[in-house]
């Protein structure tokens, strides 16, 4: 498990799945993520990506920062923290949430698990115990980080349900999207949520770290005939852009981390207005968001369908091909192998962010060290780019 070597000799932690990941890594491509060393690519990005869309995949998401929120006021506390109505979240259900600072700017997004009547788990991208504890002033609630106490493994892809069933998770097919179920797998108690970051059929497994390797082995064995494969962050990133999901520090920067003014983003700007419930009572940022919703957003995150096949990485966006009036920038871009479209997420100023509008992306191409510029037409389109029916089907089809 975790080495006891001094932290400066071992600046990155190893997840409970590290030994298995190390053994499967063919290109030795590891990246730091939230203080852990994690796999960027195991073999080849394309291979891993197609496993997400056509088979089953294992992705180690232990570095997701996890907080335990428990106590009499847990629901009231969370309702004041996040913009969604937590009162509506039933036991053994999960909700995607965002939370804001006083100015209504996004601090982080994450998933909220209701484990029982008074206990919740909040999974987030960033460590933020100070904000969570300051939010607890005046509430009878315990907030603690439990990241290291819980191993987390995503099992995603069309055959994921079949893999889990084969592995011995009886009735896992009955879980509806955002349901939580509890299972035993050999020695291990495994909590399974039908959640994920791929926009596909998939599950996330939450277990004690000492059972991590056993569970990994059981799943790999069970999935052998269903094309299971371990994947790294790069393949997942393609899938999440296709699904239209935003990624912290890519599509937005936490308002607790921005230094320059005007770099914060509100959930309304990020197209997450559906997560903001103005009728549920007070929450942090409500007054600012109400004002913003009345005044209208100044910019909005949109999906782009870009002409050509060159991903519009970091492209600035213009109203016209002449590139005179700048109106935004691309935050995430990729060639979508499934949609066969050149897609991107971009932040576009009002009033140019309407669906159907045309913008121009200034794309830079490096052709054997010679930089070329290409002004490509791009259309603002609906997100998600890819949303297969199987992601919601209950029970999922047998593959």
């Amino acid at each position, binding site marked *: 498990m975790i080495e006891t070597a001094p932290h400066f000799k071992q600046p990155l932690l190893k997840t409970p799945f590290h030994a298995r990941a190390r053994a499967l890594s063919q290109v030795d491509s590891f990246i730091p993520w939230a203080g852990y060393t994690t796999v960027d690519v195991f073999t080849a990005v394309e291979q891993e990506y197609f496993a997400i869309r056509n088979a089953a995949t294992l992705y180690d998401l232990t570095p997701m920062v996890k907080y335990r929120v428990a106590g009499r006021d847990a629901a*009231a506390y969370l309702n*004041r*923290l996040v913009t969604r109505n937590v009162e509506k979240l039933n036991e053994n259900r999960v909700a995607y949430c965002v939370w804001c*600072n*006083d100015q209504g700017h996004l601090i982080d997004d994450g998933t909220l698990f209701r484990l029982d009547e008074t206990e919740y788990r909040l999974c987030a991208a960033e460590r933020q115990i100070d*904000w969570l504890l*300051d*939010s607890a*002033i*005046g*509430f009878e609630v315990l907030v603690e980080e439990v990241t290291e106490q819980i191993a987390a493994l995503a099992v995603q892809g069309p055959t994921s349900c079949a893999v889990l069933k084969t592995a011995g998770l009886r009735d896992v097919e009955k879980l509806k999207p955002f349901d939580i179920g509890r299972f035993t797998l050999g020695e291990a108690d495994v909590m399974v949520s039908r959640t994920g970051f791929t926009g596909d059929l998939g599950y996330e497994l939450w277990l004690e770290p000492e059972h991590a390797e056993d569970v990994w082995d059981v799943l790999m064995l069970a999935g052998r005939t269903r094309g299971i494969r371990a994947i790294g962050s790069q393949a997942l990133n393609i899938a999440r852009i296709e699904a239209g999901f935003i990624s912290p520090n890519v599509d937005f920067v936490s308002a607790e981390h921005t230094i320059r003014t005007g770099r914060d983003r509100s959930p309304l700007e990020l197209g997450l207005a559906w997560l903001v419930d103005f009728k549920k*009572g*007070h929450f*942090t*940022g*409500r*007054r600012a968001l109400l004002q913003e919703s009345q005044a209208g957003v100044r910019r909005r995150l949109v999906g782009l369908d870009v002409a050509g096949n060159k991903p519009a990485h970091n492209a600035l966006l213009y109203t016209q091909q002449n590139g005179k009036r700048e109106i935004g920038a691309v935050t995430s871009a990729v060639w979508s192998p499934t949609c066969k479209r050149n897609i991107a997420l971009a932040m576009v100023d009002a009033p140019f962010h309407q669906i159907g509008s045309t913008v121009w992306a200034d794309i830079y191409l490096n052709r054997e060290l010679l930089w070329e510029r290409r002004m490509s037409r791009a259309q603002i389109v609906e997100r998600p780019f890819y949303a297969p029916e199987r992601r919601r089907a209950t029970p999922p089809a047998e593959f």
Partner: protein
Amino acid sequence: MSSPAEVAPYDSIVIGAGHNGLVCAATLARAGRSVLVVEAAERVGGAAGTREFAPGFRVSSGAHLLHLMSGRLQNDLKLESHGLRFAATRMPTSALADGAAPVLLGAGLSQSDSAKFPVYQERLRRLARSLIPLFSTVPPRLGTQDWGDRLALLKLGWAVRKLGKRDMRELLRIAGMNVHDLLEENFDSEALKGALAFDAVLGANFGPRSPGTVLTLLYRLAAECAAGDSGLSQPVGGMGAVSEALASAARAAGATIRTGAPVASVLVSDDRATGVSLENGEQIRARSVISSVDPKTTFLRLVGARYLDTGFVRRVNHIRARGLAAKLHLALNRAPLFTGVSAQQLTGRLLHAPSLAYIEHAYNHTKYGEFSARPIMEITVPTINDASLAPAGQHVLSAIVQYVPYTLKEGWQSGRARLLEATLDALERLAPGLRDSVSSAELLTPPDLEREFRSSGGHWHHADLAFDQFLMVRPVPGAAQYRTPLPGLFLCGAGCHPGGGVMGVAGRNAAQQVLNGALAA
């Protein structure tokens, strides 16, 4: 009292009948608003009250000298016709030293000091006066496009510019200094330096060497200048008489005052303060609620964090509001005889802060959760000017004793008696025989003051007066213009600009904001 369901909602409810709450209520009532003041105690006044601490002996319960309430405010509210009289005005200040002759400020100084003293006084007052534009008004917000805010900042800029090159340079030079260094630059006499430093640290969490103490001194001077620079006065009947006169003015203007009515919470519905709930369960509705209670209690207890944003609550939670001053009340069966103090000096304010080092030593203890065995004190014998406060021939002594920490390492159970002993010993050294004449004593430590006046930390300014809690950041950004993030809720107490002291400016400015808000809506 008719049942609350039947009465129409008030325009405003003011929580707390201290001087600021009463000034606010009187101002609103005079503008034609229906106002209800709810006060937890049985009498009005709060820390600006008069209390009977022993049978027949009465004393100002908190502040015992009036020097910050402007004549204009007193005239506007016709406090004289509401019974406010003064037992003494322009009272002298004397510096007491152990075993040495006391120094009457302005006289009896060394040749060099007596030449420098008036120059120093005048220059400091000139600099302080440049701060007046900021003082009496609603602090401007920073970074807005609002012309009112810009005008306020321009006025300050102009007032500072008007000082001229030399004074402006001096203001910039000394504003960040500590008062110890400033006084060392100017004077020889230890007693004089001690007495002058006293005003820079009175009621503050500072010693003379703490950074920013020149600013606190200038601030106090600016407050005095803004109030008309009319010196120290003592109201007949103690400070409670000021509050009684304010209450009478408020009632005359149509306000209702209910005492013995502690507020349990501020009612909130639809993201708006809509009234108060009393501890007895009674609910009273109003279009606006104005709290003279300290900001921490107001936001964290009466309103509750769940109606406020996290960042705002975080700032409120960080307000420094631990009182460092205790109040001592003694019933004496004869007039005290302070060594070397003349009858004329005894009518005034006696400061015991014999040197800068003495004050700094006294302050040091509080850093470690101890009280000073040799405290600094501001002493008055109010019965010299106002015999009505004690049975015939007997006297009352009122002293602010500093430094006394809110949290005492040894605990207040045993600490209180030891502090009283130490303070009486210190007084005995200044006035031999005083101990024998004490028939009754009351010592109010910061926790006592917290309980008595329901102010978090027992701090009479409700929040330390320090550079980071001044002006447009007092008590916290987001509530520094008397409005709060919760619509319909206002602050009007000492926790707001310009702070504590019986001044009434916060109450009047808050009322103005309530009236402006109503205009805007």
